[in-house]
């Protein structure tokens, strides 16, 4: 039985005036449109934050360079970090979660469509607020001034003594506002996964994608809350005479660090669990095998969720904690390597004995596996607290977390873009441009982030706008900067591919990858109501069962 039998005949929408169409996008509560809005919005900020990164790297290409002033440099790395975490990676991941979760669960929308729209617009407003600082931060004086306190904004640099003007307030309010958006989306994801599954889909028969996003959403609720609380305390300090973090009045700088990293470390898993979700869907399809050890994968995900809440102070090994506290955070940090390792082994075992097809999404997934392995291992190095007394706050840690976020999460995001582009647009992308993008980006990535570890080992701290010659850092910084241009070229090819394919690509059909989850059983792009009739499933791979009626999965699960 072919899956096309399930798909509805395509109906061409009548063309409407642009304004009417825009109005529909702005007022939409459809999870697919909101998903796409999240992604378009993230794409804009990706370009902005990418340009910021490029300027940072040009400044550091040689010692004593004076491409930008220290003031501008400090704003650039603050804006780059804040933008990439809160307004690029999170919206991309929320966009995919929004678009795919109802489709994968056989539902017609998220549990709370209007909360969904509210959350998106809060996040969007947060991003705009952050960048409005460029024109509004000094208010009456006219001169714009972006935040320059670093993306983790350690106290007391954020106090009014050291951060005059309003740039820090824009940073605070941007995160506060977008934080409400994130919590709204997270509540929506939890409710959708728990309540909106189609008949037959027990929790144990959900796609791993839904499981990983469920745990991610739980983490968002737990970790954004302390961040929001800390931002409110900071506002109280700055405007209402509070002394939470005001060290000159007996406040504590260390409390801010705890608040921030209690958010900041689970946040890493908020970002990486959806990346795991993409990889867990894509690797099986291109290996032509079911995911190896489904229940263990679920267990490892939940374990990561729990452990990730107890590792935050490994960001603080250098702040002078007691040796008992240091030991606790060493063991909890290393413990998280176990469930993460289990995941890597299960992905490998899924590929093992399969028939691997190297389409663009799979190329990005394989690169993800390779790079995430290295990122995990450099993470273990930093988990050994004494080693971290060197590596922390050096360029090594900058290389490490870019390995996680770019080498891991962004590669998985690209895999997801190529894999679900046919579903979202109804068109096939160009495989040639996809491969070109892959090779440019992976060469650039490794030039930049492999070599970035070395100056860290040679004593180069992060966040310095310049450095003196004779420290042995010059060559490495040069190579690191060159890599940026390859990555930028890769991104341009990616955007070109999306645009070209959208307008010129051939029709993709409902199931171009011969895949197994429910989103491939409906049209590409899916109609507003997703499914003509709500599907009923009996196993984790409903489309496998349809395609192999003689040998369905439910016999083995």
């Amino acid at each position, binding site marked *: 039985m072919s899956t096309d039998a399930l798909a509805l005949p395509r109906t061409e929408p009548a063309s409407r005036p642009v304004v009417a169409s825009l109005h529909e996008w702005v007022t939409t509560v459809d999870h697919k449109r909101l998903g796409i809005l999240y992604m378009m919005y993230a794409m804009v900020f990706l370009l902005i934050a990418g340009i910021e990164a490029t300027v940072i790297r040009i400044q550091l290409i040689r010692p004593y360079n004076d491409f930008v002033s*220290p*003031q501008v440099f*400090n704003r650039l790395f603050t804006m780059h970090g804040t933008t990439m975490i809160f307004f690029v990676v999170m919206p991309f991941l929320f966009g995919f979660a929004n678009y795919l979760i109802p489709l994968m669960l056989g539902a017609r929308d998220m549990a709370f469509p209007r909360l969904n729209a509210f959350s998106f617009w809060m996040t969007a407003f947060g991003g705009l607020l952050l960048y409005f600082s460029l024109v509004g931060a000094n208010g009456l004086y006219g001169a714009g001034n972006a935040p*320059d306190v670093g993306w983790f904004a350690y106290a007391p*640099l954020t106090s009014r003594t*050291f951060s005059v003007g309003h740039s820090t307030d824009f940073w605070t309010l941007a995160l506060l506002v977008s934080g409400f958006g994130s919590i709204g989306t997270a509540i929506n994801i939890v409710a959708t996964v728990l309540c909106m599954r189609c008949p037959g889909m027990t929790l144990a028969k959900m796609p791993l994608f839904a499981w990983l996003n469920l745990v991610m959403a739980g983490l968002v609720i737990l970790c954004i809350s302390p961040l929001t609380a800390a931002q409110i305390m900071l506002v109280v300090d700055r405007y209402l005479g509070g002394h939470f973090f005001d*060290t*000159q009045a007996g*406040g504590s*700088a*260390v409390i801010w660090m705890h608040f921030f990293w209690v958010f900041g470390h689970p946040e890493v898993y908020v970002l990486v669990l959806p990346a795991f979700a993409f990889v867990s869907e894509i690797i099986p399809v291109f290996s032509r*095998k*079911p995911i*190896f*050890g*489904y229940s*263990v994968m679920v267990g490892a995900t939940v374990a990561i969720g729990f452990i990730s809440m107890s590792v935050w102070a490994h960001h603080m090994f*250098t*702040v*002078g904690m007691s*040796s008992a506290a*240091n*030991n606790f955070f*060493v063991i909890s940090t*290393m413990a998280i390597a*176990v469930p993460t390792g*289990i995941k*890597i*082994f299960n992905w*490998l075992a899924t*590929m*093992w004995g399969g*028939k*691997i*097809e*190297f389409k663009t999404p799979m190329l990005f997934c394989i690169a993800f596996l390779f790079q995430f*392995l290295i990122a995990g*291992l*450099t993470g*273990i*190095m930093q*988990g*050994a*607290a*004494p*080693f*971290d*007394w*060197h590596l922390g*706050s050096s360029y090594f840690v900058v290389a490490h977390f870019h390995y996680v976020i770019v080498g891991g999460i962004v590669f998985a995001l690209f895999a997801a873009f190529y894999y679900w582009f046919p579903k979202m647009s109804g068109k096939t992308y160009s495989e040639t441009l996809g491969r070109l993008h892959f090779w440019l980006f992976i060469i650039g990535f490794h030039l930049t982030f492999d070599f970035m570890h070395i100056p860290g*080992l*040679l*004593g180069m*701290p992060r966040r310095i706008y*310049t450095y003196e010659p*004779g420290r*042995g850092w010059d060559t490495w910084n040069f190579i690191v900067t060159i890599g940026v241009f390859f990555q930028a070229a890769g991104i341009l090819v990616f955007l070109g591919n999306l645009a070209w394919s959208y307008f010129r690509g051939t029709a993709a059909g409902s199931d171009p990858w011969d895949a197994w989850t429910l989103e491939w059983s409906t049209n590409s792009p899916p109609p507003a109501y997703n499914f003509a009739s709500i599907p009923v499933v009996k196993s984790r791979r409903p489309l496998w069962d349809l395609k192999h009626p003689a040998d369905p*999965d439910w016999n*083995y*699960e």
Partner: protein
Amino acid sequence: MAAFADAASPLSPTNIFAPASTPAKSIFELSLFVLAVTGAIFLVVFTLLFYSIVRFRKRANDDGREPPQVYGSNQVELAWTIIPILIVVALFMATARVIAVVQGTPPPSTAIEVTAIGHQFWWEYHYPALGIVTANELHVPVSDPAHPSPTFIKLLSADTDHSFWVPRLGGKTDLIPNHPNRMWIDPQQTGVYLGQCAQYCGTQHAKMLLRIYVQSKEDFDRWIQQQRQPAFVDDAVSQGQRIFETTACINCHTVSGTVADGRFGPDLTHLMSRDTIAAGAALNTPDNLRRWILNPNAIKPGSLMPAMESNDQELDALTAYLETLR
């Protein structure tokens, strides 16, 4: 600057893999162990990944049938759960040992006590037992492993967070207001060891450099004697001294024995005993000193020292006065 060339590793004067002090050496040994373990894990997993993408790729002559569908195996899962747990336990034990060595060592009676205070964007040093105050260039005696004379440094901050990192002597420890910290070093080779502030502390974080002068016992004692002298007075530069003492200079700087007793900037009593100015940002030459007084932002944009807007004649006099503070 040539002083550190002989002592440095060929790669960098701030190479963490060229330790010259017990804390740095303990970390170095741990790092070799961790690198060996993670390197071995990398080789195993990379080999598996590489083998599977080569061996299990879809062949050109593929028959179009699905491969055998395997759903999992509890034995295999158990194996790759237990082995990593054992590795984690081993890594933790090795780590805990080094934490104990570095954090748990009490100061011996022969230890030198120093208080380091981080400022935007320079370092203030006190030797409470010796009655010395200096800035930016820390002098410590070499420590003979047989008769150790380590230096224990109390870390304070006058404003924002900073971090003290001289990679060849030890790991970094932060200087946080209202949160006194402590670290120790026992450098076993004389020479100049470089480092810099490793926690973003404001505009000029980049040029907040650290220099530690490790001296033989005799040289160190000589340095102490010299630092304890009151400021040198020379009538030939009384014009410069008068300008110094009647302008804003004394709001921030101390020259002992004179009216200058400011605390916001570095103590200048023995300015000329230092190789560098502006926290290591420039060599201490008459030219640089003059440029610095004229416009600190030219050397260190964002420095908190205001430009004095002196005329040429005043600048010459001021520089000549400062030149006598040896």
